[in-house]
C-alpha cells in the first residue's frame, strides 16, 4: 500500500507547487509598467459605460465605499489607490476620466486575464459605493506608481 501511495503523494506535492509558480508568473506580468492596463477601460460596452451611478447623490456612498475599498481593494491597489503590488493606480487620469458606468463594468467583470477577479459577488449597491469612492478621490498629484 505504501509503495503505491508514495508516488501519488510525491506527484501531488510537486503539483501543489505549480500554482505558486504560476501565480507569481502571472501576477508579476500584471504589474509591469504597461499603459495597456488601462486599455481594458475602453472595452466596456457603450450601454454599460453610459449607466448612471444611482448612488451619486447619496451622502453616505463615499464613506461606505471607502470601507469597502479598504476591505477588498487595498491589497492590490494600495491604501491611497495609487497603485499597489499587483494592481494599477485608480487615480490615473484614464480611470478618473472614465464614466461611473465603465468603472462599474470593470468591477463587475474583473480583468481575469490580468489577475483582477470579478467582483459581482458584491451586491450591486456596494459596487456603486466603491465606484463613488474611487471617483471622489480625483486624479493623483504625483505620477501614479502603476503607470
Amino acid at each position, binding site marked *: 500500500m505504501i509503495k503505491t501511495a508514495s508516488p501519488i503523494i510525491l506527484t*501531488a506535492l510537486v503539483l501543489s507547487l505549480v500554482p505558486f509558480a504560476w501565480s507569481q508568473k502571472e*501576477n508579476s506580468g500584471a504589474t509591469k509598467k504597461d499603459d495597456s492596463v488601462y486599455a481594458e477601460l475602453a472595452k466596456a460596452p457603450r450601454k454599460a459605460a453610459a449607466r448612471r451611478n444611482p448612488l451619486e447623490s447619496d451622502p453616505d456612498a463615499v464613506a461606505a465605499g471607502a*470601507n469597502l475599498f479598504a476591505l477588498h481593494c487595498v491589497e492590490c491597489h494600495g491604501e491611497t489607490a495609487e497603485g499597489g503590488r499587483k494592481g494599477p493606480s485608480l487615480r490615473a487620469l484614464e480611470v478618473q476620466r472614465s464614466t461611473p458606468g465603465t468603472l462599474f463594468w470593470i468591477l463587475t467583470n474583473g480583468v481575469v486575464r490580468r489577475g483582477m477577479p470579478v467582483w459581482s459577488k458584491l451586491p450591486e449597491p456596494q459596487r456603486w459605493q466603491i465606484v463613488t469612492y474611487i471617483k471622489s478621490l480625483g486624479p493623483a498629484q504625483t505620477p501614479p506608481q502603476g503607470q
Partner: protein
Amino acid sequence: MYPRCDSVATSVVVWFLPMINWRSAERGKKCRNKRRNKGCHPIIKRVFESRGSALYLMALALAALVLPAQAQENPYIVAYDHYLEEPGSLEVEYFSTFGTQRSASDFHAFWAEFEYGATAWWTTELYLDGQTTFDDSTIFTGFRLENRFRLLQHEHFINPVFYFEYEQVSGADKILKEVEGHDVESDYTLPNALARKEHKHELEFKLLLSKTFKGWNMVENTIATKNLTGGDPWEFGYAIGASRPLALKASVNRCNFCRQNFIAGVEMYGGLGDRRSFGLHDTSHYLAPVVAWNLPSDWTLRLSPGFGLNDNSHRFLLRWGISREFSGFGATVSRLLGGRKPSR
C-alpha cells in the same frame, strides 16, 4: 483603514480547533456510556453534550468578537458558486459535520481545507479529512486535491466553472462533502476498523453554473465521479442553492453585526445514480438552510442544519465551519523560495 488582525489568540483558536474536537470525542464517549441508561437524548443536546464541544463553540464566539475586519464568502457548504479565490490569497478553512445515524453510532466528521488562488481563473485546494464515530474511534480518512477553472473571462447570464478533483480516501470517510451515485445512510454503518480498509482513488468532475442577480446568487452543480479502484461505474450527483445578503448596501460604520455581513440561503444536494442505473431510486437527498457571517477581518463563520429528504438519507446533519483568508500568501512563499519581488 481597517487593521488586519492576525493576533496570536485567533491563531490559537483556529489551529487548536481540531485538537479540541479530538478531545471532545474521547470525553463524549465516557459521557455517553454513563448516560445510555437514562434513555434517549435529543439530537441537538448530543452535539453540545461534551465539554469539548462547548469550549469549541465558545472559542468560535470569542474569535468572532475579538476580531475586527471582512471577506465576502458564500454560505454554501456543499454547493459551489463561480467565484474563485483571489489571486495569491490562501484561505484556511475548518469544517465539521455532525450526523445522526440509524442502526449505528452518530458521527462527527471534520476537514481542513487550504484554498489557494493561483490566478484569477484558477483556484486549487487541498482537503484533509477525518472523523469520529461515537463509541468507536477517531481516524484520519484521506485527502483530496481540487482545482476549479473559470471558463469565461467576463460575467455572463450564466457563469460556468470546471471543477476537477482527485481524492484518496478510505471507506470510513464521512464528511459528505458531496453525495453521488447510490450513496445511502446504510453505507456509513460499518465500524471504523473495517471501513478504513477500503481505499478509494477517485476522480471527480463537476460543472458549476452560477448566476448573481439583484443580490441573489443561484447555483447548480452537476457531479460525475469515477472510482479508479475496482470496476465501479461512473456515478452522478447534483447540488443546487440560492442565497442573498440580508442587506445589499454597505453601512458607513464598521460593524460586526451589520446586516450586510450575513448571507442566508438554502442548498439541496443528492445522488442521481450511476451509469448502469441512472435515476433517483436508492439515492439520498438533503435540504439544508445555510447562513454565513462574514466578519470584518477576513474571517467567515458558516452554519447549516441539513435534513434528509428520504429514508436513505441521514435524518439530520449539522454542519459548521470557520475560515480565514490570508492575502498575499503566494508572494510571501515566492520570496521565501528566492523569487524576485514584483516590479511596480
